[in-house]
């Protein structure tokens, strides 16, 4: 009796397994309407806001495969010409630049590229920025005075800042910052800066982990993207924040503008709809949807962010554009030479 019921159980289990194997791909209920496959590495709130607006405006459905931008880029490279993806939306532009170099991206419509300043799109025209962020310094107000913070991000790599600075060498934006330092101050200066940070700074796995460490009082200062701090502020409430943002300005690489962005896969079989999606991202409606959900600066003139960010025209950022940064490939070589990777 014992074993009969067990065998039945096992049969049922095998049946379930078999059925689910066969059922395979998820077929959307609205099979007739067009559905785009979006590989999404960007934070989800702005993507969900944009997708909702896009579907409402065009009737085209979008299914997102969410993941980490760099991992999705690796996946797209492994998939090659057979990729099921139509659009890739990346949290950082170097992931887009990397797959562009592999010849996986199709050129964007000229009309789309015209919607925003050329500095925020690829020189090849294969990807375009969706929102801008800036590199900032997050500091714990109880551990350090605003006036004690340096006038250039390069100073953080010195003994005076030993064990006080959190940074995330894994983060795509940090890698872009490294390349910016290299472009502006020379490769040797960038290497010296990284070696100094390795010696005196504290490595964190991500910008958000570094920002939380500052907020929690573990460490005084973090190099980060602005929106991680804004997300934490939103979560904890503005009145209870122990940390604040410091914008270095002075056209220093410590205030670097980077973008999240998107491109259309060359292998897409729905390239017209995919192009429409990317065009919608930089439309007035699309930009409003994006910046309403994440503390990024709109790239399209005339759109306003609801977040209390320092005005874009007052940032006085480094004179290096996302297009200049490309795939930030030299960052890896520099990080390896400094033994940070």
């Amino acid at each position, binding site marked *: 009796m*014992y*074993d009969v019921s*067990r*065998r039945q159980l*096992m049969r049922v*289990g095998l049946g*379930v*397994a078999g059925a*689910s*194997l066969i059922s*395979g*791909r*998820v077929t959307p209920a609205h099979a007739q309407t067009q559905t785009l496959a979006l590989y999404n590495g960007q934070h*989800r*709130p702005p993507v969900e806001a944009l997708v909702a607006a896009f579907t409402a405006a065009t009737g085209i459905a979008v*299914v*997102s*495969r*969410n*993941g*980490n931008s*760099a*991992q999705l*880029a*690796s*996946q797209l*490279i*492994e*998939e*090659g010409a*057979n*990729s*099921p993806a139509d659009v890739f939306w990346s949290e950082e532009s170097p*992931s887009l630049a*990397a*797959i562009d170099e*592999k010849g996986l991206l199709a050129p964007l419509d000229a009309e789309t590229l015209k919607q925003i300043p050329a500095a925020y799109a690829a020189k090849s025209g294969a990807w375009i920025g969706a929102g801008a962020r800036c590199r900032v310094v997050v500091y714990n107000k109880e551990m350090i005075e605003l006036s004690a913070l340096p006038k250039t991000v390069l100073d953080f790599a010195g003994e005076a800042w030993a064990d006080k600075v959190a940074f995330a060498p*894994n983060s*795509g934006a940090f*890698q872009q910052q490294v390349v910016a330092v290299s472009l502006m101050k020379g490769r040797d200066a960038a290497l010296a800066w990284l070696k100094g940070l390795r010696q005196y700074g504290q490595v*964190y*796995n*991500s910008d*958000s*982990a570094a*920002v*939380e460490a500052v907020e*929690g009082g*573990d*460490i005084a200062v973090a190099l980060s993207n602005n929106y*991680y701090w804004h*997300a*934490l502020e*939103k*979560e904890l*409430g503005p009145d209870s924040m122990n940390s604040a943002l410091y914008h270095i300005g002075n056209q220093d690489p410590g205030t670097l503008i980077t973008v999240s962005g998107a491109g259309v896969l060359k292998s897409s079989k729905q390239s017209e709809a995919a192009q429409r999606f990317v065009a919608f991202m930089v439309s007035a409606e699309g930009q409003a949807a994006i910046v309403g959900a994440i503390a990024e600066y709109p790239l399209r003139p005339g759109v306003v962010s609801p977040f209390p960010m320092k005005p874009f025209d007052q940032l006085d950022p480094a004179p290096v554009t996302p297009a200049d940064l490309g795939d930030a*490939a030299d960052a*890896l070589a520099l990080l390896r030479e400094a*033994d940070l*990777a």
Partner: protein
Amino acid sequence: MTRSSGDRDGASRRDAGGPPVSRLLVALALIPTALIALPIVYVLLRSWGAGWEGILAELGRRRTLMLLGNTVTLCLSVTFTCCLIGFAAAWCTERSDLPGRRIWRVLCCLPLAMPAFVASFAWKSLGPAFQGMPGAILILSMESFPLIFLPVAAALRSMDPGMEEVSRSLGKGPWQTFLRVTLPRTIPALGGGALLVAAHMLSEFGALSLLRVQTFTTAIFQQYELQFDNASAAVLSALLMLLCLPVAFGEMWLRRGVRFSKVGRNTARRIAPARLGRAAPLVTLGFVVVALLALGVPFGRLLYWLVKGVSAGRGLEAIGPALYGSLSLALPGTVVTTVIALPLVLLVLRSRGVFARFADRLPYVVHGLPGLVVALALVYLSIRLLPSVYQTRVVLFAAYAILFLPLAQSAIRASAELVPREIEEVARTLGRSPLRAFLSVTLPALAPGLGAALALVALELMRELTATLILAPTGVVTLATEVWSHTNDSAYAAAAPFAALLVLISGVPVYIFTLRMLKSVPERQISEATT
């Protein structure tokens, strides 16, 4: 106990035309072996892309040495700590007169339900003191020791007390009896558990990245963040597999030639418990501390986030789909993994041949690989060889099997080793066909092990993140992907319900697993099945 090392399959040779079961078994064992070979081939192909010079340069770096040091330190320290805590807890709850043994037994299993990244997140928020290597060793030991506790407790429980009584009656003291009789009989259980813990540590990513400890696995993830077409990540992966080799074969060496099967009805008799006497309060205190560290801190933090935080309630509409996603991937994935593992275990128990041993060990070598590497290997291979199955469950289940076969193997083997081969042979001589003899005699006897395997694999699959993100059908979400997504946006309160549900759901396989492991008197079931 019988010590049998040679080939004793005389009965099966009696059939004309050789042993049909064995041939079928070998064929079935080829399936997992072929699957496991996929990531190995991929890693070797990609490493080759670096060229000899690249490989040597990677090996000679100071950083590689640092990673090696960290990886080995973490792996050995956590495994050793888990062995100590797990064994001590098992002995106290099974062999002593500790008050409240039943409750402690349950509490010692519950940490299994807590994913390491949730626990690490909770600890991390207590302060920087818990980050870094010492913190990681503490936290991961607290979450992993049940993997030792459970098999050792089960082994102690199913052990024939007669041996210990004989030893005592021959004038050996309690310590000598423990060292000469009790301990050697728990070695296979202890070794099997230690192997799983060690392999887990080699492939752990989420917890370590939160706790800021750099190992080969975190470095492999970093490589994929920094560069996209990656030879040095492949070289690190190959190194990681080399590190798994001594782990995988060390455990086999520990259990060389040992079989603890018994023929005949086991006595349900329990040995008289050891008296703790005045040590009882101290031992109890130890259990309280372990429970607080392993359960109190993570659960407390989860509750805190559930009630605090502005993002509370955000994305709650995804709870249904996420729960469905988790179950619809984890449950069939579990069945597939367990079914695939079964022939491997049976084969190595019946044949001492090179292929059997090799096939049995290979999954353990791959178990140390990060999910990311296995997932990318399957992307690369499936889209080229079988594009129609790409991003269907077929490929995802293959990845699950590759990643978690050893969990199923260990659990099934624990039961399979207790089944005397003679029983199946008896059924055969009574005229049953090999397949029927297997189905009616061996399979039912394996039920406890299969149950444990299903529970253990389900547990891991529900919290699996990387392979699921990369290989699941587009649009499918699970509890684990939602937790990851929300914490990625610093929306901890939004993540908390998903994490809590994940822990709650994980409680079910933990409960089943615990019940299975601690209930085992398989001999009785065999005799029932054969009558």
